[in-house]
């Protein structure tokens, strides 16, 4: 959906990334950069009130961790897409970001075309994934209940189809090949992955809501 109107909010302290995003938006004139924060404090104040559809979040902010703002946004803007901006895409940190509510990630150093493709992919219900991340997710979902953060009554479980998808991603297959192997649509493969991310984050959401209720904030 290249003609869709998309509002983007950037949380990033590196001015070259801001320029890169601005340049990228020239290719999609119907998209708008509706907000920018260069610190965690600024983002905490403004981002949760923004009407942006997509938040691009850097994990290494000068005054704190991007994971903290992801948690707040996951509660304040559950319908928005939270894309992590990362240099290396190291899976351990990505897994934590997904648990905090991220719905995808983009590698810094990508081209404008790749950034546009990543935003379009999450807007269309898809989600990026790597073989290592899939492997980690398989492990995470197989872990005993106690190892999940702040034990919830209903531990998320993988469906048979989601397990099949994750196993094939972990073996290096790309979405198109997985769709052929499992005889499903390419979009369905992406949807399965996105659902997995939602399942991972649901614990964080439940946990944050619980804490907020206890503190009388909700």
């Amino acid at each position, binding site marked *: 959906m290249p003609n869709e109107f998309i509002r983007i909010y950037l949380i990033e302290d590196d001015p070259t990334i801001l320029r890169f995003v601005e340049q990228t938006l020239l290719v999609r004139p119907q998209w708008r950069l509706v907000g920018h924060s260069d610190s965690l404090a600024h983002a905490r104040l403004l981002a949760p009130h923004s009407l942006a559809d997509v938040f691009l979040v850097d994990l290494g902010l000068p005054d704190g961790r991007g994971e903290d703002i992801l948690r707040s946004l996951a509660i304040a803007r559950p319908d928005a897409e939270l894309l992590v901006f990362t240099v*290396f*895409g*190291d*899976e*351990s940190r990505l897994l934590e970001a997904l648990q905090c509510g991220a719905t995808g990630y983009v590698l810094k*150093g990508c081209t404008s075309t790749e950034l546009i493709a990543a935003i379009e992919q999450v807007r269309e219900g898809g989600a990026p994934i*790597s*073989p*290592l991340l899939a*492997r980690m997710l398989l492990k995470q979902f197989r872990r005993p209940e106690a190892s999940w953060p702040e034990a919830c009554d209903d531990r998320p479980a993988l469906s048979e189809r989601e397990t099949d998808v994750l*196993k094939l*991603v*972990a*073996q*290096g*297959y*790309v979405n198109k*090949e997985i769709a052929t192997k499992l005889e499903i649509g390419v979009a369905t493969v992406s949807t399965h992955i996105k659902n997995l991310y939602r399942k991972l984050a649901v614990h964080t959401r439940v946990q944050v809501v619980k804490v907020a209720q206890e503190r009388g904030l909700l």
Partner: protein
Amino acid sequence: MTPGLGWHIGGYWILSLGAGLLALLAVFIWLLLRSNRSVQEVRRLNATQAGRIAEREAELLKVFEKLKAAEQQRLLEAERRRMMRDMHDGLGSQLVQTLNLVRNSRGELQSTQVAAMIQQALEELRLMLDSLEPMDGDLPAILGTLRQRVGPSLEAAGIELDWRVEETAPIAGLDARGVMHLFRCVQEILANVVKHSRARHVRVRTWDGEAGCVHLAIEDDGQGAGSALVPGRSGPLAGRGLNNIRNRAAQIGATVCFYDAAPGLGVEFSFSARFQ
């Protein structure tokens, strides 16, 4: 015999008996005291011995701890050296090439060329970081990770990747160091396919073999090996490239075999289950 003499003899005999008994008692007491001293001496010696054993144990423990620390230090050193070597040969040389290109350009430099070189350096760094992720000898996951890095260059060259990777048993030799060796081997093979083979397809397969062996095969449908497989002859995989692959494979406990895949070239790695 007079009665006085009888008394005298009886008294003497009693006196002698008494003296004998006293002597016997004295000997008994002396023996008792001596045995007591011996027991005490044995106890003292035992205590000293136990103390010495405890001291020796503590010393041995210290030596063991030192050896353990030294072994850990040695492993860390080896890992540090490996990473330094990788950085030197990979990322370092790429950055030097880029720097030299920029310095010697005399204003005729194309930004796309520099961007491509920096992109390559960044990919190299990502590859190194990938190798450090815990993969537990999971060959399909290792290959899948590498596919993300090398896939785009195959695609750009118009070569279709036929991915037939199946789940395999974990491979003991594929720790972080081993992963990097395998990355380099596969990178070299695929780079040769792109540069020299004129192939349209590359097939990557993995499977579990007999006796716990795991196999990886990479085949292309290009112009084939020709003289490349003959040591000392020229060709796409001849010389240093071929030897590098063999040496790296040996380091991860794998044997490597190059074969005619008619029409292209095939390379098969066999990982031994017993390699530690």
